[in-house]
C-alpha cells in the first residue's frame, strides 16, 4: 500500500492554548482511518489541519508527498481537487439547489458540457439515494438528506481521499447507519481513502477501520476496533465502556 498522508510531530495551537501536540500519523491508500475521542480532544482540529483550514504551529503534513502549506497556489488548488470534505453540518450553499451545489465544483474546474455535468450530478445523487432532490434547496432537506447531499458534493470531483467530520452526528440511528453504509460503499467500491472523525460507538464498529484515539491533543491509541475493545488503557477502556467508572 502506498502512503498518501504523512504527519510528523504536528502541533496546533489556538493562541496560547495547544490543541494538538506530537501527532505522528501515516495514512495508506484505500484505508479507512477513524479518528475518535471525546469532545474537545482535537479531532476536528486535526482534520482541519490536514485539509489546510487551520494553520499548524509546528511539524509537517504531507499529502501525496507534497506539503500543501508550502505549495504555490495553483499546485495547492490541484492537490485540493484530489480531496473531498464532508462537513459536520453539510455546509451546502443555501442559495443554490442541491443539483447546483454539486455542479458548482464541476463548473468551476472543468469545461464539461452542461448536459454531462447534469448527468454526473444526477449519478452522484443516485449513488447517495437523493434522485428526487436535484431541484430542491438545502433548506427543504432533512438532516439526513443534507448529509447525503454533502457526501455527494464531496465526491463529485472523484476525490482520492474523503474527509468526513462527524458524519452521523445529529442523525437518527437508521439514517446514521445508512450514511456509514454509503461511506463503506465509496471506500470499497470506488477505492476512496476515508478519514472519518467521529465519537459514535456504533458508527466506529460499523466502519471497522484503523482507529486512532486522541485525548487532550495527543494520540493515545492506534489499532483496530477489536484491539481497542480489549485495551487496558483506561482512556480507551472508558471510551468503549462509558458506563464504567472513569479512569
Amino acid at each position, binding site marked *: 500500500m502506498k502512503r498518501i498522508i504523512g504527519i510528523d510531530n504536528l502541533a496546533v495551537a489556538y493562541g496560547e492554548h495547544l490543541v494538538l501536540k506530537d501527532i505522528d500519523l501515516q495514512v495508506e491508500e484505500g484505508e479507512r482511518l477513524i479518528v475518535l475521542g471525546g469532545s474537545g480532544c482535537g479531532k476536528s482540529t486535526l482534520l482541519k489541519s490536514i485539509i489546510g483550514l487551520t494553520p499548524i504551529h509546528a511539524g509537517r503534513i504531507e499529502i501525496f508527498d507534497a506539503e500543501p502549506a508550502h505549495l504555490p497556489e495553483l499546485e495547492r488548488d490541484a492537490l485540493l481537487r484530489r480531496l473531498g470534505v464532508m462537513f459536520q453540518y453539510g455546509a451546502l450553499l443555501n442559495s443554490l439547489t442541491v443539483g447546483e451545489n454539486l455542479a458548482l465544483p464541476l463548473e468551476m474546474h472543468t469545461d464539461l458540457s452542461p448536459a454531462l455535468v447534469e448527468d454526473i450530478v*444526477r*449519478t452522484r445523487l443516485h449513488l447517495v439515494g437523493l434522485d428526487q432532490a436535484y431541484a430542491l434547496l438545502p433548506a427543504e432537506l432533512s438532516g439526513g438528506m443534507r448529509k447525503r447531499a454533502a457526501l455527494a458534493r464531496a465526491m463529485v470531483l472523484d476525490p482520492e481521499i474523503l474527509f468526513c467530520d462527524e458524519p452521523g452526528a445529529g442523525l437518527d440511528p437508521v439514517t446514521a447507519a445508512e450514511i456509514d453504509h454509503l461511506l463503506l460503499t465509496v471506500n470499497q467500491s*470506488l477505492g476512496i481513502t476515508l478519514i472519518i472523525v467521529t465519537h459514535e460507538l456504533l458508527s466506529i464498529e460499523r466502519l471497522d477501520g484503523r482507529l486512532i484515539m486522541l485525548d487532550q491533543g495527543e494520540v493515545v491509541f492506534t489499532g483496530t476496533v477489536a484491539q481497542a475493545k480489549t485495551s487496558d488503557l483506561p482512556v480507551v477502556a472508558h471510551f468503549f465502556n462509558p458506563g464504567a467508572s472513569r479512569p
Partner: protein
Amino acid sequence: MAEIRSTDRGILFSGTLTLDSIAALETQISQLLHDHSVTTLQVDLSQVTAVDTAGAVFLHRLPQIGRQVGKDLTITPLPTEELQHFYTFITAAERAESIPPTAVNWLEQVGEQLLQSKERWATFLYLMSDLTWAAIATLFRRSGIRRDSFADQAIAIGSQGLPIIALILFLIGAVMALQATAQLRKFGANIFVADLLAVSLTRELGPLMTAIIISGRSGSAIAAEIATMKFTEELDALQTMAINPLRFVAVPKLWAMLLCVPLLTIMADFFGILGGTFVAVAAFDISPQAFIDQVIGSLFLKDVLTGLIKSFSFGWIITIIAVYRGLEFSGGASGVGQATTASVVTSLFGIIFLDSAWGLLFYMR
C-alpha cells in the same frame, strides 16, 4: 491523456478517461461518429487505462450520442476487471421527468397575495402589541429588564451611534444654512436662517435623520441577530427552556432603542444647529451671539417636545419591524441578508408614515 480515433469497425478509445480529458472527447466524438461510413459501430475500449465517474458517465451516454447522429453503437468491455467493475458500479441516473408547474391564473395569484398579506399584517400587529405589552410589563416585574443586555444594546445604539449622527447632522445643518442664507440675504434677512434651522431641525429633520440612520445601523443589526438566532436554533433552545424567546431577546433591545433614539435626537438637533452656526458665522458675518439668541428666541417647548415624541415612536417602530423581519427569516445566509434589507426598507416606510401621522396631529389646524 485520452485519445479517440476511427477504425474500420468503429471507434477506438485509448488512455485515461477522466475528468480532465472528457471535455475534449465530448467535442470530438459527435463529429467522428458522424463522419464514419458504417452505421453500426463498435466502441473499442480495450486500450483504456483509467476511468473515473465522469469517464464512466460519458461512456454510458455514448449510445445516446450515437443515436443523435444516426449510428448504432456497441460498446466492448473495459480491459480489466477492476475498470469494468467501476463502470458497472457507476450507473448513469435516469433523468427524472420534470413536473411542469401548475398554471395559476392571475386572479388566484392576486387572491393568494392578499391572503398572505393579511396573514403578515395579523402577525405584525400581534407582535407589535405583544412586544409593547411585554416591555411595559417588564417594568413592573421584580426581575425587571435584563440589565446587561439593555446596557450592551444602549451602548451599541446610543454611544456608538453618536459620532456618525453628530457628523451627518453637523453637515446637514451647515448645508441648510448655506442654501438658506444665500436666498434670505437677497431680502436682508440673513439672521432668520437661525429660525429656519432651529425649527426645521427640532421639529422634523433631527428626529427623522436620526431615525433613518438608526434604522440602517441598529435596526438591521437587530434583524440580522434575530434571524441568525433562528437559523442556529437558539430561539428554539430558549423555548425548550420555557423562556419566551421573543421577550427575552427583544425587550431589552426595545427599551434601549426607546431610550437612545430620543437622546440621539437631542444631540442631532444640537449638532445640526452647530453646523448652521458655523457656516453663518464663518461665511455670512453673523455674530455667534446674535445667531444663538435668534435660535433660542425662535424655539418653543412644543417644537422640541414634538420632536422627542416623534423620535420615541420612531425607536419603537424600528425595533418592532426589525424583530418582525428577523423572525420572518427563512433559508440560510442569504435569508439573513434579505431580513436585514427588508428591515431597513420597511423601517423607512414606518418612520415616514409615523412622521406624517404626527405632522397631521401636531400641526394641522
